[in-house]
């Protein structure tokens, strides 16, 4: 009795959901995260429902299973717009076009009141790496210096000096593809000394901008598209990028407000971004990003293109010459810094400008097949400039800020799968 009462109480709490974002799953998750009945959490340990949003690569299936097994009982999985795992039996699915909000609520209620049994492990419950060698814990060592636990000798391994000559023990681990603070799909193998990144290598590249984000821009290929629609999509994209960065700065409510604003913009609302900007300035969001963090030079910027290039003073924008923008008094906006703060400011500036353009455009349209400036840079080919070269020496939070300051296309080009640190 007491248990069922507790269950009924618990069912009225926001549904704790851990999202595993696959290909094309990011934007719709951003929208879903605004639902008051849900709470999108950062750690699978805090969640009761695993929401798989978008297609999972074959290479990520093991990671997904590992994340699933970390959820505490009672737990369940909901597949949103993707094929469920073959061996999961009666899997719960929701089509990509639908919102899974009610399905999640219902599933959570049944989970807590006993209507839905908690899922068992997908993987065998054993350590991912077998313990090697001897010792009480099978760790392979004996005595202070003896043995080679986990395949590494005991004295400090050779590590480059990053700070003050006091080398600390290093730790290597893979991060991603479902770590919410990294771009979806990106798996990095990072070696850390404390919270300072020693070296990083790409294990799996991130996804290119998803279908939801690029649809308005792809539309131009098939039909004439209103300038207003394009610019609204741009503003929404930039605000979502800003939101990701704000999350790392510990500004969750402000990030949610950005996402909410982005959604309103997509739905055609007329919004003044000045108050949001003021809130962010008062919160110290600009000042909290260290000056000169994650700089890119002119050649690098030219290769990336898009807002990242304009944030490094490369005044290149297709809209300057586009006929549809001729009467709109378009002026390319630039920042001079080329660092994380400049890219952050650039996104906000461009979002504001895009909204102004959308208002001024009336029913001006971009004709079918005309070149259109996307909200990100060039999508291909892999760049000679590597994300992994930027990270060594940065503190964990700064490294995340640096990665989050690039749009998906830029990260994708700078983090190709290949030989790192030749």
């Amino acid at each position, binding site marked *: 009795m007491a248990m069922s009462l507790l269950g009924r109480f618990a069912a009225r709490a926001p549904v704790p959901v851990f999202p595993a974002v696959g290909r094309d799953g990011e934007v719709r998750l951003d929208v879903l995260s605004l639902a008051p009945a849900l709470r999108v959490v950062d750690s699978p340990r805090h969640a009761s429902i695993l929401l798989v949003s978008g297609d999972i690569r074959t290479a990520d299936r093991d990671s997904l299973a590992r994340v699933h097994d970390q959820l505490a009982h009672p737990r369940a999985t909901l597949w949103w717009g993707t094929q469920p795992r073959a061996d999961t039996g009666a899997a719960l699915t929701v089509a990509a076009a639908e919102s899974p909000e009610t399905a999640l609520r219902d599933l959570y209620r049944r989970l807590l009141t006993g209507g839905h049994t908690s899922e068992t492990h997908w993987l065998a419950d054993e350590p991912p790496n077998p313990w090697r060698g001897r010792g009480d814990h099978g760790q392979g060592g004996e005595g*202070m210096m003896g043995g080679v636990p986990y395949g590494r000798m005991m*004295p*400090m391994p050779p590590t480059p000096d990053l700070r003050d*000559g*006091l*080398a600390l023990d290093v730790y290597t681990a893979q991060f991603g593809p479902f770590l919410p603070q990294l771009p979806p799909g990106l798996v990095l193998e990072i070696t850390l000394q404390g919270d300072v990144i020693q070296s990083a290598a790409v294990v799996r590249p991130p996804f290119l901008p998803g279908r939801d984000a690029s649809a308005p821009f792809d539309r131009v290929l098939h039909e004439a598209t209103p300038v207003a629609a394009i610019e609204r999509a741009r503003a929404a994209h930039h605000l979502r990028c800003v939101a990701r960065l704000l999350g790392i700065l510990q500004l969750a409510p402000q990030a949610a407000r950005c996402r909410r604003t982005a959604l309103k913009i997509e739905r055609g609302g007329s919004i003044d971004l000045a108050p949001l900007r003021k809130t962010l300035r008062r919160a110290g969001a600009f000042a909290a990003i260290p000056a000169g963090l994650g700089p890119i030079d002119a050649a690098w910027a030219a290769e990336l293109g898009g807002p990242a290039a304009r944030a490094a003073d490369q005044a290149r924008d297709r809209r300057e010459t586009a006929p549809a923008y001729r009467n709109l008094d378009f002026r390319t906006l630039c920042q001079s810094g080329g660092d994380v703060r400049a890219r952050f400011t650039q996104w906000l500036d461009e979002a504001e400008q895009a909204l102004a353009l959308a208002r001024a455009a009336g029913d001006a349209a971009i004709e079918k097949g005309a070149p259109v400036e996307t909200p990100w840079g060039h999508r291909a080919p892999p760049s000679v400039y590597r994300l992994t070269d930027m990270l060594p020496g940065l503190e964990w939070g700064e490294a995340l800020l640096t990665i989050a300051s690039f749009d998906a296309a830029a990260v994708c080009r700078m983090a190709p799968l290949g030989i790192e640190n030749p």
Partner: protein
Amino acid sequence: MTLTALLLVAAALIGIGLYGALSQQSFVMLMMGLELMLNGVLLAAVGFWSLAAGGAPAGQLLVIITMAVMAVEMAVGFALIAAVYRNRQADMTESLDTMKH
């Protein structure tokens, strides 16, 4: 709680501390031994002050000075360890087997 019992506990702490300070190879563990001995000293001093000296203020002063000594020992100890570590990349007493590097 008698003074004798209290002093016995303090003596036990000092004994264990001495064992640690003499036996440990790591500098930090060695310092733990010293700290444990000083812990015993603190206990004995407060015991004397409280049960045998009628609360004479100078007894508390002694404890405060002992605490200052502990702080000095910690600070200088860790500074020395940092210096040794820079030079030998180890905090083992055995690593200091020569006077020069």
